[in-house]
């Protein structure tokens, strides 16, 4: 089909898709704009969630609402720890799934997919059922949250790293072995640098899953309060505008990490996205 033969309708159709796509994207970003806007809001009253005036107070008095900063701290702590463990265990599993032959591969695949296919309310309630039946009902807290977060992050890590690994030519590792690199050197010099963007993506994913989780955490947190739980609680009592500051900061940090990571890996010749 020659370009000159394309009809005007065709031209519109081509751009129509892009227009619709951008509108959908706008829909996805609208709440983020609201969050950023609200972080500068001076509300008229405690229970109103309308934009009444501009202020920097929310940014300067970030920790003023009771438990806000401690809940963010707890979420960060759990997020980092759970990400570390889930990424490590999940990466090992991904390597096993893609690079090794063993019995029960299909079963292992289903096993890894199942937690992703289970509604969170079920994941959360079954963990709670386990903790309660093993007499840990009174000991819910940091470690039970951590355990739960690693569990639901794990499958996502495996799937993400696996995708990256499966896209990697196995001959590269064989070439390394052929060129006198032992298993350990092959892993560090070839496999790891090439899979690293996938591992990084998996870690980011894990962290966002963990930092954001409410349903599972809420059931297994005992007396601890994570950031989503703080927001949830505040919703019934009147929402402090500072949560929008946290939202804005997280958004900005994520953006920076993604952009830096993307440009960094582009410089190294392999794009993450």
């Amino acid at each position, binding site marked *: 089909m020659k370009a000159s033969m394309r009809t005007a309708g065709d031209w519109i159709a081509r751009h129509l898709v892009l227009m619709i796509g*951008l509108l959908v994207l706008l829909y*996805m970003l609208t709440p983020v704009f609201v969050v950023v806007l609200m972080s500068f809001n001076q509300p008229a009253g405690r229970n109103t969630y309308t934009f009444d005036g501009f202020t920097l107070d929310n940014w300067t008095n970030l920790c003023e609402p009771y438990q806000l900063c401690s809940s963010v701290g707890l979420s960060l702590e759990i997020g980092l720890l759970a990400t570390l463990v889930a990424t490590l265990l999940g990466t090992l599993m991904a390597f096993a799934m893609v690079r090794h032959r063993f019995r029960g591969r299909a079963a292992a695949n289903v*096993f*890894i997919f199942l937690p992703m296919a289970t509604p969170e309310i079920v994941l959360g309630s079954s963990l709670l059922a*386990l903790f309660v039946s093993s007499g840990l009902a009174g000991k819910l807290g940091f470690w039970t949250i951590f355990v739960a977060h690693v569990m639901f992050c794990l499958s996502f890590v495996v799937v993400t790293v696996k995708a990256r690994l499966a896209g990697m030519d*196995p001959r590269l590792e064989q070439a390394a072995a052929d060129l006198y690199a032992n298993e350990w050197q092959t892993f560090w010099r070839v496999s790891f640098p090439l899979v690293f963007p996938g591992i990084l993506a998996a870690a980011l994913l894990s962290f966002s*899953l963990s930092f954001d989780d*409410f349903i599972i955490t809420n059931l297994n947190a005992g007396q601890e309060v994570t950031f989503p739980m703080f927001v949830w609680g505040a919703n019934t009592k009147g929402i402090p505008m500072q949560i929008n500051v946290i939202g804005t900061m997280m958004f900005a940090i994520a*953006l920076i990490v993604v952009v830096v990571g993307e440009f960094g890996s582009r410089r190294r010749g392999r794009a993450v996205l």
Partner: protein
Amino acid sequence: MAHVVPTEIPDAPPAPEQQRRGLAGYLLLTPGSLWLAVFFIVPTVSLVATSLYDPSGSLEFGYQMTGHVQNYPHAIAEYWDPIVRSLQYALIATVACMILGYPLAYAIAFKAGRYKTILLVAVIAPFFTSFLVRTLAWQYLLGDNEWVVTFLRWLPFTGAELQLINTPVAVVAGLTYNFLPFFVLPLYASLEKIDHRLLEAAGDLYASPFRGFLKVTLPLSMPGVVAGTLLTFIPAAGDYINDELLGSPKTRMVGNEIQSLFYAGDYPTASALSVALMVTIVLLVAVYVWRAGTDELV
């Protein structure tokens, strides 16, 4: 909420001769598998067990394991409406995600050119602004005095009484919004893998781009569509945050009920309802995957 989706759908494993045999595979698999076994499989069994406890017990005084199967008919009869409502809402939200998400994924994969990365970042970035905080933003946006409603009320064919917040529309809109990236990302990964030459060949053979889309792009993107719908439908069916923040008591979903039952200490009924939800979803998903004829999910 599970908030970011892998941006790629995994490929089939490489040919067997490119894989190593031996113990190493099991060693790598063991720690993660143990974690999943202890904190996913055992709890699921534990949940089923709890669903069979005698409901007259309590958290303080303990429960009796009596194989009380009646918990199931009781829970299902009692919460029939929320169960049906959850599935309905999740289904509508999934269809809405498909309608909104396909053009977006398609535009990113084929029409964005060098802005592809920027658009992808724009899809992923909202994940990091807390889910709850964003849903609260919707609560604000859909509020009675905000511009969305004001605008809709101004339209000639809507009444001045029109309301969004606390209605099923708001809940479904929230679900759609929250799970849209879960649809877009796997679909994008699927679309991106399509060989552009195939589209050119289709253009050559069918002449109409739309026929080409129907005959080539759409079938080839099916694995992405299936993965996307599952990652949208499953969490949406169990969600209660959107309903709690954007809905009303009249729109309660099964997730809300399970949560409340646990809080009220009625563990056997809550567990029975959880198991019922899980079984329903597994059955629906199994039928769907079977009908869609794809096994490329995992």
